[in-house]
């Protein structure tokens, strides 16, 4: 059966039509949208708001309401700064504890998600996080499926797909480093959640014993329908349990729970970095080869060049020795390959297709043999000539080290 016989499954389950955006595209779109956002903020501050503000403040009802709000805000600030009067937990201290903790380990799980790609509700994630290191192990039905590890100090990333016995080990780009940094500000990070809860309007909950630990909690609500409850151990002043819940428009209740916390732990790279099992296969240039390539640890085997009219395709075939002993050969575009537009590629690719058929049918006209130094080594090149059906000349050359 041809793969396309099963196209529904390919599109739906294997996402064959999914494409990644380019870094340039991301930059363009984000630049423009963030600019619009900034301009709108400035416009609001400079123009519209004061007028509206003045109009609203003319109302006597508003004046009374504003006074009440000021009182409420004042009480809220007091609640954050000095909750010790009602309970044993001082929230400002909790925030300091959490911020000062060199590393933290926690579990995240949830229910109600309808995203089929998500590990929930049958799965959970264990995360180890320090300033430089993040490792997340994804479990489903008690089995580990994925491990994702970042080290921002070494700018290294390891991904293990345990179910497929494959791995990627590669250097992180600057964008990936930024993204990993931004991950720490997400709601799934307990530090970020604590900050969010304390920044929102919140109220204290009565004491509760969780797994034998006396805790006190707060409940905060994000306008739009998300409620978070954070429970802190009275004795240690660290979060023990965080529950977040929301109900979607279909009436389905979504919950997320962060628990099994270990605070104030030292997480060294040696302890946290995952080992790559010997029988796992590397996912090509995307992984270890990319690192080796950047380090120049590769052997140039062949240089191939195809010149069709004004177009030129030049590739270098390299040999990589991977850490697991495997040898992989990989063709890569040469650094001096010209950049073509999509329209040009379209035309060139059609010519290349015809040339490949011609070449398969038989050798072309021998032109010459010459020598050239490539990447510090002398290569011996052989050139052949072909003609496409419309008369376009094709010069094909291949070079091997002498």
């Amino acid at each position, binding site marked *: 059966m041809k793969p396309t016989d099963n196209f529904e499954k390919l599109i*739906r389950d294997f996402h064959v*039509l999914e494409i990644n955006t380019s870094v340039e595209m991301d930059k363009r779109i984000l630049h*423009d949208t*963030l600019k*619009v956002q900034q301009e709108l903020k400035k416009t609001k501050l400079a123009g519209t708001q004061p007028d509206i503000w003045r109009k609203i403040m003319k109302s006597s009802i508003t004046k009374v309401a504003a006074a009440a709000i000021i009182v409420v805000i004042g009480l809220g600030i007091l609640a954050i700064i000095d909750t010790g009067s009602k309970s044993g937990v001082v929230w400002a201290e909790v925030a300091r504890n959490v911020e000062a903790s060199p590393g933290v380990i926690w579990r995240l799980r949830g229910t109600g998600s309808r995203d089929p790609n998500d590990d929930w509700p049958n799965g959970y994630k264990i995360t180890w996080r320090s300033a430089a290191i993040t490792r997340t192990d994804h479990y489903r039905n008690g089995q580990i499926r994925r491990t994702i590890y970042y080290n921002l100090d070494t700018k290294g990333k390891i991904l293990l797909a345990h179910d497929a016995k494959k791995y990627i080990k590669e250097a992180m780009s600057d964008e990936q480093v930024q993204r990993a940094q931004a991950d720490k500000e997400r709601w799934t990070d307990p530090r970020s959640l604590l900050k969010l809860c304390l920044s929102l309007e919140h109220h204290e909950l009565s004491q509760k014993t969780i797994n034998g630990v006396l805790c006190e909690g707060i409940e905060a609500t994000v*306008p*739009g329908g*998300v409620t978070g409850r954070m429970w802190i151990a009275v004795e240690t002043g660290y979060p023990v349990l965080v529950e977040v819940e929301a109900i*979607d428009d279909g009436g389905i209740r*979504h919950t997320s729970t962060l628990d099994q916390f270990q605070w104030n732990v030292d997480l060294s790279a040696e302890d946290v970095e995952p080992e790559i099992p010997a029988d796992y296969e590397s996912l090509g240039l995307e992984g270890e080869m990319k690192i080796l390539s950047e380090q120049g640890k590769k052997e140039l085997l062949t240089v191939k060049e195809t010149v069709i009219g004004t177009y030129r395709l030049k590739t270098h075939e390299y040999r990589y020795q991977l850490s697991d002993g495997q040898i992989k050969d990989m063709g890569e575009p040469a650094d001096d390959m010209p950049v073509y537009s999509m329209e040009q590629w379209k035309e060139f690719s059609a010519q290349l297709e015809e040339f490949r058929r011609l070449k398969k049918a038989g050798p072309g006209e021998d032109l010459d043999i010459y020598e050239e130094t490539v990447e510090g080594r002398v290569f011996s090149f052989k050139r052949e000539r072909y003609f496409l059906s419309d008369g376009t000349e094709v010069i094909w050359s291949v070079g091997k080290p002498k």
Partner: protein
Amino acid sequence: MIEDKILLWKFKHGSSDALSRIYEKYKSDLFSLANSLLHDLNAAEDVVHDVFVSFVKSADEFQLTGSLKGYLLTCVANLSRDRIRARKRSPIGMSKTDMAIPDYKIPSQALISAEELHRLREAIAKVPYEQREVVLLHLQGRRTFRQIAELQGIPVGTIQSRYRYGLKKLRSLLNGEIEK
């Protein structure tokens, strides 16, 4: 879903981090759908760009009913349809995408050869737009028939028919049958 609600709240309060995160989270889904509908990478980028700019401009009045991903996919589908109409419903060829077949996600590549993928994309491009839109929104965008019907303001039965005809057309194209 919880993350989206928190992100939306932050976004509505002017957080550029939240906006960036929303973009990062859904960019591939949106770009993929736009590209599948339009078969033109440049036009797909324009659509995603315009959807996000409109999204930012409507931040103050924005009220989400349903999922954020669904909302953004709907915007992409609507804008793509406008672009297609602007082209006066001329048949969509493969003129701009072939060699620019961009960075397909790795796991997919292992399941289907480049040639098969090319055939699939070419066949999709030949399916009438109304049917293609339903097939892609359902399979790629994971929208239910009811959601698509609401999006297009037409009966669910019509959407289901379009889906069936779309699949039939695709199957015949991929099996090399003569087009009727």
